[in-house]
């Protein structure tokens, strides 16, 4: 792989202050997301995997270590610069979709382009193309409450992709979907990965995680195991 890595975290820690008590959520994590990577972060709730995802996505800043996203050290960035970095480099997919309820699929997908200062006509054209891409060309003007969970998640994926990010961060993307729908959403993510977008899945579902090219297992704010999927040992209970 000749392209520079999308995200490099070096000994990153994140400590929350709760009523004067320091609560460490991440205690020194080093991780590289290469361009075109397909990575799963697994762990029980409270293991720090969500905190790690927020950091990787530039929604939060580490309290220790260095974090470089898209070649830029987040410690040097102001909040508006962080917003721009998220807009240009990262696409988010959430468990609960996070679509604007009163807004059509097309305008939901176009939302990130609003903050890039792109005109309405071009926004709608790009959003339409992206909806076609995720197989929802016939649902452009539907609102989220008129769509199934799987369709809503596809809209969310289209929204994550519309800015052409180098990394797609998916937090339990199949968590609210039935197995079949979940499979097709994963298949979509994988086809995007095949086209060169790095995909980071955060999940507690081993079966989902095993589809990734490599897994990172977290416990108590630390990476306890990092290995290609093939090496995690077959026959381990799911």
């Amino acid at each position, binding site marked *: 792989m000749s392209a520079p890595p999308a995200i490099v975290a070096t000994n990153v820690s994140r400590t929350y202050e709760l009523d004067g008590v320091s609560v460490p959520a991440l205690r020194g994590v080093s991780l590289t997301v290469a361009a075109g990577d397909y990575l799963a972060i697994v762990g029980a709730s409270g293991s720090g995997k969500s905190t790690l995802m927020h950091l990787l996505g530039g929604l939060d800043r580490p309290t220790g270590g260095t974090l470089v996203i898209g070649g830029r050290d987040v410690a040097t960035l102001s909040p*508006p610069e962080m917003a*721009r970095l*998220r*807009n*240009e480099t990262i696409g988010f997919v959430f468990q609960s979709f*996070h679509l604007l309820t009163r807004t059509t699929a097309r305008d939901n997908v176009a*939302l990130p382009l609003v*903050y890039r200062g792109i005109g309405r006509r071009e926004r709608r054209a790009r959003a339409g193309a992206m909806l076609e891409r995720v197989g929802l060309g016939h649902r452009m003007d539907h609102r989220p409450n008129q769509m199934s969970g799987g369709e809503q998640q596809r809209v969310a994926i289209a*929204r994550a992709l519309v*800015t052409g990010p180098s990394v797609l961060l998916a937090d339990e993307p199949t968590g609210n979907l039935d197995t079949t729908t979940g499979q097709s959403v994963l298949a979509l993510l994988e086809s995007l990965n095949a086209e060169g977008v790095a995909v980071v899945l955060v999940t507690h579902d081993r079966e989902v995680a095993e589809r990734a090219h490599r897994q990172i297992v977290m416990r108590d704010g630390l990476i306890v195991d990092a290995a290609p999927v093939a090496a995690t040992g077959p026959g381990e209970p799911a």
Partner: protein
Amino acid sequence: MRVAEAWRVALDALRANRLRSVLTMLGVVIGVAAVVALVAIGTGTKQQIEQQVEGLGSNLLIVVPGRLEAGSAPSVSTLSLDDVDAVSRIVGDRSRVAVTVASGESVRAGSRSSFASIQGVLETTPTVFVRRLDRGSYLTRSDVNTARRVAVLGAGVAAQLFGDRDPIGRQITIGGVRFRVIGTFEALGQSLGVDRDNEVHIPVTAAQRLLGTERIDALAIRAPDRERIDTLGDDIVAALGKRHPESDFSAVTQEQILGVLGDILGVLTGVLAAIAGISLLVGGVGVSNIMLVSVRERTREIGLRKAVGARPRDIGVQFLLEAVLLTTIGGVIGMALGISAALLVDRLSPVPAAITWWSLALAFGVSALVGIVFGVVPAQRAGRLDPVVALRTE
């Protein structure tokens, strides 16, 4: 984020909560309507009074006994008809000098009676003041010299005593003394709360005999030219002071009366507008309150917008625009309501109202300002929300 897009988002948000938006606007609507209506009424009243004072005629100089100062005691007039001759010599033209001695008396014609303001005057009154006759003729110099018992009736008195009949040549009694009607005035209406159609003019000499007095209450002079009006006033006051060393006299011009009245009404209008402005302020607090609720309700939306690249400023602007939109729409509705209220008052009551463009511009500007002032805190709060926390909110 482009401004047009921000407007669209703000408008969408208001539409999504239609009833709440309308109720929030209501505070601003009422405030702006009250300001616009009260300022219109204040302005209308001021204009009407100014017109009436101007209607008295230009270059008017009024001489009264006593000092025109706040707190000075009202003084009994020591002026007599001899003083009028002295003043006429200073002015150089007797026809420019008018006098009045006034008293309220019961006026009767047959079985009908009316309580009227009896004004003892010279024949010069219609030229000094602007007073037009409806019928008949006015008093003559010989009427005044011989204290002839003739009267000119105000329109209201004439209507009360004679109804539709022609009063000219008929007899009336004033305070039990018989007078003959020789003319009637055109209707004038109210002026400064005084019904000017309730006057009856009789020769000043006859009035003094009727009232058993030598005094006159006041002098009015129509100055030959505007430039000399102040020196003329000073000359007259000095001459009268020499004739009556024990008394003070004052001369006021029409401009001075207008100035004083204008000041009083201006202050009054300002106070009314300020009181109405308080309700606008309360409306602003309501907007602030609802915007804070809105920020809390839409925390997830804010989190998502930030995740996909909204800067703190973009979010702040979105909520600020929403607040400004609430208050400016409320302001426009309030203006329409205030204008309608003012027009209704003007048409249906004796209180006049005049709508001025500056009061509308001010109302609109203030309502937008209220939106900005009361929208800033909620907008800042929204802009500063931590996206991680916002996304987790359920």
